[in-house]
């Protein structure tokens, strides 16, 4: 970004320079400027005073490049009555000196704020007020504040001098000592903020105090792991700090910035709380939000991000400080500010996991209560916290209860208001999962400790949890076997271009599914040392994968599947002939394949499915394959036999009937596909025990609905076959017949209704003239499809796929009506499609597909309007659509699908304009359409 001076007004250049010097604190003389630039002297004299005035009010900011306070290179030796002895600390807020108050001959600590700070009256007053309040706090555990003063623009804060060490320096020292004796052996954190005596040797205060806490003599070789003495030391620190807080809180004073650096420990083991009220005093000053921000943010309570602070926020920050003392690492270790804030505001459950040793359960319970995400779950007062710590120290029962996973879940739900829209059943299921998962987790832990008896139970509850989760999962996101039809539009040469649609989850479902991740994750990450647990873990990974898959997080899903596959393979190495393992592994491969398919990687998809197929084919020899395995085999054949680009549901009918479908590159040839599909059909028929006989198609409650379901899908897939139309029609009919039976038997299973609605409209609509009987059939199918979808939408308003299917069906029906020259009906259909689709676009502003569909519907509507001679409305419809497409194109430059629709839109606009006699504008539209098509042709 270089300024090019030659182009700039010379007076402006001078003004800029002058302003810059003013800002740097020089006092450039206007007369000098005028004298140096005689040609501009008058203007300088005329205008520069206005600059001075305009700049004058500007403030008040301490410039410090490294985020720490700086005194601007000034060496201070004395401030009033105070003789500064040495610098003892430096933080974001100021520099702390040890000093002597000469009149009283006492040692004090003086915190000096950088010069430019507090120039503003308002802030200065606040600083003084807060200092006065802090000076009124007298408590054995609060660093006393003697007063404030200022000299040469430096404001300072005089406090009691404590011969002690801040916890922020003590914790790394403790960690160093403990880690030295454990395997980790890692060095203490290097981020010691104090330059002075940064490497505490045995004689330093930090070392002495560390020894004191650990309860060992200094110089003891190989300090052992922290034991009960240490835990009690931490509890005593917490107790004193809590009492100090209670004292302040009862006087209406909040600390607002409790963190390890503000807790000092002296050699007597006494805790000193420092910097009361300073955070508030410095609020909104630059210095409070410099690079030091992360150091402060890390201990902030989640509600403080929302701008509400009360005494329970202090309790929270104290809890996190104590947590760090126990765990010897911060609870939230994130160093990036934004991620840190995210972590804290999510309140991800944390357990205390010190590098060595085990924190006593009571103490852990107390600390975890103080750091509850919601302030109402914490101790109601610092006194209550102090009391519980005292109970712990005196071996009396504590009041805090361990929060069960169920409660944690309830709390989580409370934080996610979208859950209010969920049905009670789903919530109940969620609770069930929480219970089962936690029991399973506990038992797993027991099992890992080698209690053989617990093993079986651990496994059983883990599997129960997985099952319960699966049920919720299915409710939230319909398990579509059928890929929704892609969006198809007219290409440049009249060919059809298809944009695959993908499942969009409603926001609520996505939130919930995301919330389920930790449960699965916990199951998935258990370190399984025996095979049956390993199998559960593998399974949990598989489910984790499918959640990620539904959430559209494909990379994560692939990771999960990969982990699952590895675990299964490991298991198979132990028992290569286990058919169950083979089945599970095949399932993983199949799901993996489906991810590839959604990501438009047909080659990889086929490879995955083929791998699954190979696995299951090796299983046939001696022992007959189990039913689930045969079913999976049928599924695999179905996936492999499915056309990689399903038939478009919505091709504009007036496009050239001879349009050539773009050959999909690695397309399996139809023969192979038919073979695979008939193999699937054979397997499924064997499974249901019925020969391929339409009359035996299930009439009442079929025993294995999933077999029937897949069978229907296979028939349907045959039906959409490009060249086997006559055979296909029979297939579609059979599919509909089976699905109708399924829907009759299981009216509440949405998948069946949904697939039936799709099956009904997957039909070839012949060109007119259409015999009346066919026409009737087509209309009946549309009516059935719409009827099903309407019910689905009513029942599941939060599943956008159903709404969008309804919109697409109306569109397709509209196209049929138009073909039949029923303009009024067609118009109604397109209007309905637009009305259904519009809210979806608003709901998913970032997903491109809903918007593209909407554009397609609106263009279709405009087309009908043109035919009906409602040219004005058609024109405004088209113009609005084009403008929204242009916006989309800006966000996704070069997108072929957007450009295709855009070209189509311009073509229609041209017609509309020509009809209303605007031939010039019409030519312009035609030109644009041509231009886009040319660009597209060249890029293809």
């Amino acid at each position: 970004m270089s300024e090019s001076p030659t182009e700039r007004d010379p007076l402006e250049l001078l003004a800029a320079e002058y302003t810059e010097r003013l800002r740097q604190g020089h006092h450039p003389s206007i007369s000098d400027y005028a004298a140096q630039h005689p040609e501009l002297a008058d203007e300088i004299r005329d205008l520069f005073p206005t600059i001075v005035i305009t700049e004058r009010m500007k403030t008040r900011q301490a410039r410090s490049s490294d985020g720490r306070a700086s005194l601007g290179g000034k060496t201070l030796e004395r401030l009033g009555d105070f003789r500064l002895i040495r610098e003892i600390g430096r933080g974001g807020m100021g520099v702390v000196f040890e000093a002597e108050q000469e009149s009283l001959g006492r040692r004090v600590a003086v915190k000096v704020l950088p010069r430019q700070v507090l120039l503003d009256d308002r802030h200065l007053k606040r600083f003084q007020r807060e200092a006065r309040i802090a000076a009124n706090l007298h408590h054995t555990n609060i660093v006393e504040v003697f007063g404030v003063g200022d000299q040469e623009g430096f404001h300072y804060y005089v406090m009691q001098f404590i011969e002690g060490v801040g916890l922020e320096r003590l914790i790394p020292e403790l960690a160093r000592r403990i880690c030295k004796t454990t395997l980790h052996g890692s060095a203490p954190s290097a981020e010691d903020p104090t330059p002075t005596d940064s490497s505490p040797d045995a004689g330093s205060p930090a070392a002495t105090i560390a020894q004191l806490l650990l309860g060992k003599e200094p110089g003891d070789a190989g300090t052992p792991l922290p034991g009960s003495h240490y835990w009690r030391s931490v509890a005593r620190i917490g107790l004193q700090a809590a009492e100090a807080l209670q004292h302040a809180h009862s006087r209406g004073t909040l600390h607002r910035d409790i963190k390890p650096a503000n807790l000092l420990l002296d050699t007597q083991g006494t805790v000193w709380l420092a910097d009361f009220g300073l955070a508030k005093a410095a609020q909104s000053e630059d210095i409070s939000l410099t690079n030091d921000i992360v150091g402060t943010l890390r201990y902030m309570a989640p509600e403080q991000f929302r701008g509400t602070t009360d005494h329970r926020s202090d309790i929270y920050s104290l809890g996190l400080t104590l947590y760090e003392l126990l765990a010897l690492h911060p609870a939230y270790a994130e160093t990036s500010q934004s991620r840190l804030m995210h972590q804290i505001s999510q309140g991800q459950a944390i357990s205390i996991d010190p590098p060595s040793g085990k924190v006593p359960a009571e103490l852990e319970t107390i600390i975890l209560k103080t750091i509850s995400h919601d302030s109402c779950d914490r101790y109601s007062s610092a006194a209550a916290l102090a009391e519980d710590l005292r109970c712990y120290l005196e071996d009396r029962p504590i009041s805090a209860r361990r929060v069960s996973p169920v409660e944690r879940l309830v709390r989580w739900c409370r934080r996610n208001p979208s859950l209010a829209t969920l049905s009670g059943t789903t919530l109940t299921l969620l609770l069930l999962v929480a219970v089962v998962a936690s029991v399973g987790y506990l038992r797993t832990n027991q099992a890992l400790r080698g209690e053989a008896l617990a093993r079986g139970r651990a496994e059983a509850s883990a599997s129960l949890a997985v099952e319960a989760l699966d049920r919720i999962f299915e409710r939230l996101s319909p398990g579509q076997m059928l890929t929704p039809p892609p969006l198809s539009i007219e290409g440049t040469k009249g060919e059809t271009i298809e944009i695959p649609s993908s499942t969009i989850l409603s926001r609520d479902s996505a939130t919930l599914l995301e919330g389920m991740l930790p449960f699965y994750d916990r199951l998935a990450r258990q370190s399984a040392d025996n095979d049956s647990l390993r199998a559960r873990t593998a399974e949990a990974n598989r489910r984790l994968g499918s959640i990620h898959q539904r959430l559209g997080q494909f990379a994560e899903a692939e990771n999960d599947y990969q982990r699952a596959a590895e675990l299964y393979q490991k298991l198979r190495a132990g028992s290569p002939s286990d058919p169950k393992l083979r089945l599970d592994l095949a399932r993983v491969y199949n799901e993996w394949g489906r991810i590839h398919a959604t990501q438009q990687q047909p080659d990889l998809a086929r490879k995955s499915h083929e791998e699954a197929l190979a696995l299951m084919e090796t299983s046939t020899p001696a022992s007959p394959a189990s039913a689930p395995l045969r079913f999976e085999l049928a599924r695999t054949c179905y996936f492999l036999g499915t056309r990689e680009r399903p038939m478009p549901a919505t091709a504009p009918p007036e496009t050239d009937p001879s349009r050539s479908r773009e050959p999909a590159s690695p397309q399996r040839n139809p023969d192979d596909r038919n073979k695979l599909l008939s193999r699937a059909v054979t397997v499924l028929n064997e499974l249901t025990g019925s020969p391929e006989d339409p009359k035996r198609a299930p009439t009442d409650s079929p025993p294995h609905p999933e077999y029937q379901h897949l069978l229907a899908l296979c028939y349907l897939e045959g039906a959409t076959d490009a060249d086997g139309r006559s055979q296909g029609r029979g297939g579609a009919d059979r599919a509909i017949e089976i699905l109708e039976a399924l829907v009759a038997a299981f009216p509440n299973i949405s998948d069946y209704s949904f697939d039936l609605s799709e099956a009904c409209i997957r039909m070839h609509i012949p060109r007119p003239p259409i015999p009346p009987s066919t026409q009737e059939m087509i209309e009946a199918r549309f009516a059935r499809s719409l009827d099903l979808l309407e019910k689905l939408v009513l029942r599941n308003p939060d599943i956008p796929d159903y709404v969008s299917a309804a919109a697409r069906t109306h569109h397709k029906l509209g196209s049929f009506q138009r073909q039949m020259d029923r303009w009024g009906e067609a118009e109604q259909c397109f209007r309905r499609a637009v009305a259904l689709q519009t809210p979806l676009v608003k709901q998913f502003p970032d997903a491109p597909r809903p918007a593209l569909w909407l554009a397609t519907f609106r263009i279709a509507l405009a087309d009908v309007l043109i035919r009906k001679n409602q040219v004005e409305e058609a024109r405004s419809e088209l113009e609005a659509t084009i403008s929204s497409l242009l916006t989309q194109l800006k966000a996704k430059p070069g997108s072929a699908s957007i450009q295709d629709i855009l070209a189509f839109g311009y073509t229609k606009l041209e017609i509309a304009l020509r009809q209303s006699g605007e031939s010039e504008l019409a030519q312009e539209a035609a030109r644009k359409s041509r231009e886009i098509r040319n660009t597209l042709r060249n890029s293809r």
Partner: protein
Amino acid sequence: MTGDSNLIIQDLEKRLRSGDQQALADLFSRERERLWRVIHFRLAEPLRRRLEPDDVLQEAFLAATKRLDHYASSPTTSPFIWLRMIVNQTLIDLHREHLGAQKRDASLDVSIHAHSQSTSASVAIQLVGAFISPSRAAARADILAAVYATIEQMDPTDREVLALRHFEELTNSEVAEALGIEQKAASIRYIRALRRLKELLAQIPDLSGELHHE
């Protein structure tokens, strides 16, 4: 701008365009002061009691982290101008959230920042703050009204240029970028606006004394 800091900025820009979150944090702390000024300047009076500029900054930073990927994939402005846009958007959102529709007062809606405090009002408040000592607080409201009316008479772009140069501390090239005009035009506009401001302020009796040099 020294060569050194130029290099640093170029490096930051490069890292930013690769979506580096740390670079964003660095840029943010580098530009913090100026961004703070934007907020300080644009925050409407009624909101000042409820929001500190730092709160807004924090919000803006969060918004920027969310939008970094988008910026990295298609940077259309320099990083500072991008951040400034985000800060302004954050301000608009906060104003909307806190003040709702009541703020749609047509008389204040003249600035290009339709939802945050109008530039006129901000300039007036800042200027009067500079002139009037607290002891003359009683006169403050009257003069504020006079200055406001004065600023209102300025051409909107001129007004904006002044505000950007002095209250947000943008350089000439940044002003050009922010307003989408040529650097030359920005430079000429600035001097013209300064001149106009001087003339207008000179008409306010209480202020005219301040405007004469020596």
